[in-house]
């Protein structure tokens, strides 16, 4: 893990993600609200109820570029936002493990909630990531994939 930057912290990593580290990083003396979204691998998908793991594939450079665009839009739309972290795991992620974390801090909780939800909604729609669902007897590409969209300005 690289040294955490000050305001924007984007990562695409094969290592486990620590929500704690992101919350602590996002907590600032000027910001009363830290909203965190953790996406964890669940047993039930659109097509299977015995998922054991997910395996994510990406082009890291493209993904980081898109995630930076998401943060740029957050700062434009919610200008009081202090810190924004977007971390996504790639490779195999086991059931119950965290595949994605968003953390946003702001002086105002309404803005922090809106910005965090924008981050995860847009990450799912606009970042080049593909996941395979893995169960005991086989695996398949996720059935809830959507045509990739541009990051809203």
């Amino acid at each position: 893990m690289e040294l955490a930057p000050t305001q924007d912290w984007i990562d695409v990593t094969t290592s486990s993600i620590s929500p704690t580290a992101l919350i602590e990083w996002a907590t600032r003396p000027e910001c009363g609200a830290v909203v965190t979204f953790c996406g964890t691998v669940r047993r039930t998908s659109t097509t299977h109820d015995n998922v054991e793991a997910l395996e994510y594939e990406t082009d890291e450079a493209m993904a980081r570029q898109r995630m930076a665009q998401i943060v740029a839009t957050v700062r434009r739309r919610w200008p009081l936002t202090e810190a924004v972290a977007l971390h996504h795991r790639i490779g195999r992620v086991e059931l119950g493990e965290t595949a994605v974390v968003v953390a946003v801090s702001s002086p105002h909780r309404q803005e922090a909630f809106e910005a965090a939800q924008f981050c995860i909604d847009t990450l799912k729609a606009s970042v080049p990531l593909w996941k395979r669902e893995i169960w005991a007897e086989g695996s398949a590409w996720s059935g809830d994939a959507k045509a990739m969209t541009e990051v809203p300005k």
Partner: protein
Amino acid sequence: MRTSKCESATEVPSRSLGADVAQLRLFGPAREAAGRASDDVDGATVAAVLAAATARYGDYFAAVVAVSSIWVNGEAAEQNSPVDPQDEVTVLPPVSGGC
């Protein structure tokens, strides 16, 4: 037919075939359908490159391409967008980040 080469042409180094054609990059289901993550594919437009790739990889690949976004050199492209040698043509199937 010209018999003398211009200066710039004389300076072109010998190259592999791959450098004369588009570089195809494939992800997720497109990579799986092709059985590889990258390839050299000839074609003057996106449509031509994808047609050549489909001829090589088959129907499942064609089905994935039909629902994919296509980028040329990192920018969104259309079927009739021009492709120059050494351009990077990327096939981006429907995405599924998050949980």
